[in-house]
């Protein structure tokens, strides 16, 4: 019997780079570019980073080597402002204070060896720096050690400033690649740090928990885009999603306080004026910052995922006796600050894309689509925390699956702008949530 030749043959797909040249690709941005998720930078996250996924696809049409400042394998690392290191978050199964099965999420031990300087092994193609704000991407302090700089960039900066006192810059290191193509996803850290700290910072400041002044942001975008395109490189730029579409900010409902009629009546007798309860779902009680007064949350206001869940479930948090501390709350003023600045930042990103002919990835819109779920090869992923699989255990950063979904959005935008036909990546081969 003839054993060969019977498998039906399908034409090999032919891919082309269109008007783009992917030979030397460099990626600039923050944690979302670095591959940071599950609350830490890990090697597996770096390998699933959006730029690394893009580089694999670019390799189909002439893309060259894509070198990342990889950590050693293991639990990864997250560095706090004091330089203390822990590892990524891990999901565990537990019986909660109410006797119900649910999940625990906690950091596991980190890998301090990952902090070793590897800048002499560069230049690197992925210049995603967790926590870096727009104006820090050209800061000559960022690569310095200690709290003055950024621990993550300090790892792989080409010059940590040990001699001159001034370090290399992220944008300068990017130019060492002499890129033909770049990706830029900046601005998240310019507003999310304010949001994830419950709005303790100021609007229009350059501190860690502040929202960057719009003029500063605009200037940073111009400087960075001009720098990256100075040698004629083409590129792709992504905008900033709305925090209301991110699990860290939308998982705990403002009205998650469920009461019986008797409980409501009893609470009403001890509540100050303006606070009242009824049977069913009620708004949580929160403290007003600084004043010692309390109030009930309004529809649209957000609670952070970082609220100790046992305190909320069993510790009486959210009742008049135990108002939720203000740093877990994004009130309507803070929310409006955040939203209006995201809009301003995104307007600038769109304008820069139009001015320089960049592909624009509307991640802001994609996150809205993700709320109800998107399908890839039969699997549905959504923005729901844990069950949706698109976000990692930190609730802010995408899971590896989420990175792959967003990378496909990048590819769609690049294909449309530069008339190429890169295939999407197989999202389902990336890790979502590993359940215990």
């Amino acid at each position, binding site marked *: *019997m003839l054993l060969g*030749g019977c498998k039906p043959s399908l034409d090999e797909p032919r891919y082309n780079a269109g008007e783009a040249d992917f030979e030397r690709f460099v990626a600039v941005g923050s944690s979302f570019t670095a591959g940071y998720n599950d609350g830490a930078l890990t090697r597996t996250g770096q390998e699933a980073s959006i730029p690394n996924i893009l580089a694999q696809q670019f390799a189909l049409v002439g893309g060259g080597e894509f070198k990342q400042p990889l950590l050693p394998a293991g639990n990864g690392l997250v560095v706090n402002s004091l330089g203390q290191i822990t590892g990524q978050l891990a999901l565990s199964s537990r019986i909660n204070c109410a006797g119900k099965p649910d999940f625990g999420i906690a950091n596991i031990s980190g890998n301090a060896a990952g902090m070793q300087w590897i800048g002499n092994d560069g230049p690197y193609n992925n210049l995603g720096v967790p926590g870096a704000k727009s104006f820090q991407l050209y800061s000559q302090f960022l690569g310095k050690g200690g709290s003055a700089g950024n621990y993550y960039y300090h790892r792989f900066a080409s010059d940590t400033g040990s001699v001159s006192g001034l370090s290399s810059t992220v944008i300068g290191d990017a130019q060492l690649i002499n890129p033909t193509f770049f990706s830029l996803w900046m601005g998240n850290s310019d507003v999310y740090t304010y949001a994830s700290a419950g709005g303790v910072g100021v609007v229009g400041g350059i501190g860690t928990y502040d929202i960057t002044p719009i003029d500063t942001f605009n200037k940073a975008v111009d400087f960075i885009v001009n720098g990256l395109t100075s040698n004629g490189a083409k590129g792709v730029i992504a905008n900033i999603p709305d925090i209301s579409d991110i699990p860290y900010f939308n998982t705990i409902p403002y009205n998650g306080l469920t009461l019986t009629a008797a409980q409501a009546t009893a609470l009403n007798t001890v509540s100050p004026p303006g606070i009242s309860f009824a049977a069913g779902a009620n708004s949580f009680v929160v403290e007003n910052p600084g004043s010692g007064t309390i109030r009930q949350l309004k529809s649209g206001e957000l609670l952070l995922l970082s609220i100790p869940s046992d305190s909320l479930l069993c510790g009486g948090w959210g009742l008049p006796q135990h108002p939720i501390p203000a740093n877990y709350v994004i009130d309507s003023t803070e929310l409006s600050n955040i939203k209006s600045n995201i809009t301003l930042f995104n307007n600038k990103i769109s304008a820069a894309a139009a001015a320089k002919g960049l592909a624009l990835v509307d991640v802001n819109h994609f996150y809205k689509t993700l709320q109800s779920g998107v399908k890839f090869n039969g699997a549905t992923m959504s923005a729901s925390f844990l069950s949706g699989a698109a976000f990692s255990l930190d609730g802010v950063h995408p899971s590896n699956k989420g990175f792959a979904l967003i990378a496909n959005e990048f590819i769609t935008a690049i294909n449309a702008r530069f008339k190429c036909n890169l295939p999407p990546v197989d999202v389902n081969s990336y890790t979502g949530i590993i359940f215990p």
Partner: protein
Amino acid sequence: MFGCLLAPLLSIAGGFQINTQGQKSTSMGGSVSSVALDGSVVFYNPGALAFIDHGYLNAGVSLIVPKTSFLGQTGVEESMPGQMYTPFSVYAAYAWKPKVNIGLAINTPFGLGTKWDSNWSGRYITQEAKLNALNIQPTVSYKFNDHLSIGVGPMIVLGNADLTKALPYASSAGEAAVELKGSGTSVGANAGVNYVSGNFALGLAYRTSTKIDITGGDASFTNVPSSLLQNGTIPSSASFETSVTLPSVFSLGAGYNVTPKVLITLDFNYTGWKVYDSLNFIFADNSQLDSRQARNYKNAVAVRGGIQYKKTERITLRAGLAFDQTPVQDGYVSPELPDANRLIYAAGISYKLKGNFSADLSLMYENVKERKEVDNMQTNFNGTYKTNLVVGGLGLQYEF
């Protein structure tokens, strides 16, 4: 053509209809609703049963060897691993009284079988699918005169489904999976009219649609993360119900004896696939698992032609050609049944053995057209499918 004897997929006509219901008919492209060649007439046209002048016992098995390749949206080509399916048919036709003949058909007019690698890109849609409908059809046929006859028989259909797919819930032990198994029965009818005049014959046959209700189906979940079992997201097993509606088939056929040795036939089929509009799995006690998927099949036609040549007393040669239209519309092409329009080439030989025995051999090649799914409505599972399919058949006949 026998080269790829190790492959899967048992859909060998449009949709999940199986048209190899006898080796002689298969050899002629299935174009036999106007003529009574053997006991399979009970199934192809109960009306023509009245025109047999002696009895037939036919038993046959088909060896179906399909090969499907899939080029997905990510640019990776995947092929089904080797599978083989063997639907069978048994017919008895008895010339009972001068004007009344009776018969019995036991066959599998519908079925499908697909099996992909368990970790392939479409695993959340299907890893393995098996569906078959066994038809038991006692039949009576009445001849008004030497020209016109009718026949009818109830169809008792025993349906069986077994579907396995992966679930997108992972633990350190890998992904979960679910197997859905169930069976059900239904009743329909097969009726036909036959008109014969000299060298010319006309046949008209109609099989009704039947709905197989599967209640008490068993869903068993494997490799589910223990935390999701604990919190009730997924049970370890559950009961479901579903139903599959098999379509009606209308056939119009003509046959002409060009010479005493040469018969040519032509058939037209119209299959009422529109009834297969959705496939729903409902879990009474676990409604979070309910699945409702539109299928939206459309009615489909087939055109079939055949020729038979009685070379010698012992040897009869046959050949056939058919075009079979797919009922699956763009947007609904699924890897359980990556269907497309197909061209069918067939040939066969009958050889008289000792006594009243004879053997029938058939060989069929189906060229299923390349099918490109751009935007699947249900799953976003897009790509290009291509199937080739070889069917060998062996039948044994006893005449009395």
